[in-house]
């Protein structure tokens, strides 16, 4: 059996104080249905990727909550896997189709974060870490900072190398109308931005964002559909302390290897990849763990423009602007990555079109690498 994405839509990402979760969900889901040319009554199940609705908004039971709002009286589920909630929701939706239970389902990824104070958001996000990490007073920038420090020590990666990831992703975001940021930045600006968790600075960090994305998945091909060639999940220890290595995400490597086998492709076959750059160091790790570059070589390649639109020599990384430039409403991100790749593979991505894109890879990570979700899409 083959699974296809037949429709996709993304809302504007950003600090959307006037937008409610209900409004964002309607815009994303009805947008995806319109894109698919599908009536709402044909939808057989709804999968919602979200992390923080309970801790920040006091609203759980999101399956029924959004089913009511969308006028869908169908089976509905909230799927939670920290910042990989969106990717996990897509994986579960794919599995529901493979089981034969449904033929057409909708995945909604959504998060509303900017209604709340930064300290409260930081506390809530630490729900993705281990109890020991919470008691240590760690934050997610802090955990990735310790990964960055180890990568700098082992491979000579510099703070300027990390800054170059943010520079590239902000440039890509200027080409994406839905991105949170539309301002180009420089390595100097990143280096001068306020320190958050040394060595990571404000402009190394993806922002706190609101936004939603939705896709329609079907067992039937349609004129503009894109095939889901692989959908794979892997997990690792919740906390950093129990990991054998700090300079790779084992879950990413494991999921990627299986996904490449399932899709029958090699890393060099990927034209466009949306990778989980929650922090600049995370994109460097991803580029290595996904097999695009040998360990220790990604930072220099990204800095030289080898993964930038217009100057790339192989895969383009984060044409949407990534989490850094496009924004990171955590539950929405994994679904947005797939919506972006659908546009790329259809050749509809406008100014940020990756030339002749035929194979796309989405890489969505939960926590500091405890969950990794890989989707490979093909024309």
């Amino acid at each position, binding site marked *: 059996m083959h699974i296809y994405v037949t429709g996709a839509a993304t809302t504007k990402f950003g600090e959307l104080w006037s937008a409610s979760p209900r409004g964002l969900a309607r815009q994303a889901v009805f947008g995806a249905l319109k894109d698919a040319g599908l009536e709402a009554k044909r939808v057989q199940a709804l999968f919602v990727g979200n992390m923080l609705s309970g801790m920040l908004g006091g609203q759980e039971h999101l399956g029924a909550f959004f089913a009511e709002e969308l006028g869908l009286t169908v089976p509905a589920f909230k799927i939670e896997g920290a910042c990989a909630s969106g990717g996990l929701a897509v994986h579960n939706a794919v599995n529901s189709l493979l089981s034969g239970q449904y033929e057409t389902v909708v995945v909604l990824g959504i998060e509303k974060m900017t209604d709340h104070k930064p300290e409260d958001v930081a506390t809530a996000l630490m729900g993705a870490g281990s109890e020991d990490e919470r008691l240590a007073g760690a934050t997610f920038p802090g955990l990735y900072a*310790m990964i960055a*420090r180890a990568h700098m020590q082992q491979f000579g990666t510099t703070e300027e190398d990390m800054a170059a990831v943010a520079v590239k992703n902000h440039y890509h975001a200027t080409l994406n109308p839905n991105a949170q940021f539309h301002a180009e930045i420089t390595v100097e600006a990143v280096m001068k931005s306020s320190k958050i968790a040394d060595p990571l600075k404000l402009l190394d960090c993806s922002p706190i964002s609101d936004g939603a994305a939705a896709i329609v998945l079907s067992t039937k091909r349609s004129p503009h559909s894109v095939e889901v060639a692989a959908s794979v999940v892997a997990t690792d220890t919740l906390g950093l*302390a129990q990991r054998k290595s700090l300079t790779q995400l084992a879950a990413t490597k494991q999921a990627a290897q299986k996904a490449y086998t399932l899709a029958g492709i090699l890393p060099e076959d990927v034209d466009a990849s949306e990778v989980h750059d929650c922090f600049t160091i995370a994109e460097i790790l991803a580029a290595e763990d996904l097999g695009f570059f040998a360990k220790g070589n990604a930072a220099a390649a990204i800095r030289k423009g080898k993964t930038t639109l217009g100057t790339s020599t192989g895969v383009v990384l984060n044409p949407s602007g990534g989490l850094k430039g496009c924004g990171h409403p955590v539950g929405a991100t994994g679904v947005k990555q797939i919506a972006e790749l659908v546009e790329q593979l259809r050749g509809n991505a406008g100014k940020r079109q990756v030339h002749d894109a035929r194979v796309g890879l989405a890489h969505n990570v939960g926590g500091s690498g405890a969950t990794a979700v890989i989707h490979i899409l093909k024309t």
Partner: protein
Amino acid sequence: MQSPVKIWRNQKNIAQLLGKTGTIVSWTLIRVPPGDFMDQAPYPVVLAELEDGKRIEAQLVDWKDTHLAFGTKVKTVIRCVMRPDADGVIPYGIKVKPI
């Protein structure tokens, strides 16, 4: 969210980690802390490898800039880890200090 029951249950495990020594294998300086740690920032959080090979993540106390380095020797100590909430139970736990 702090819970007196959870604090009571977990405090039984603190003794096993006390008085151990180890070395710093990575570190950061937290400048934007979670809410319960606001009055302590900025503070270092380190990943330390103990003599038995076990790794722990903990806040570094009684520190100077020169202690934030690979290989710095530390030992585990008991401290109040964060601001108690309205229930008033002091959340004790493990921190590390330079030797």
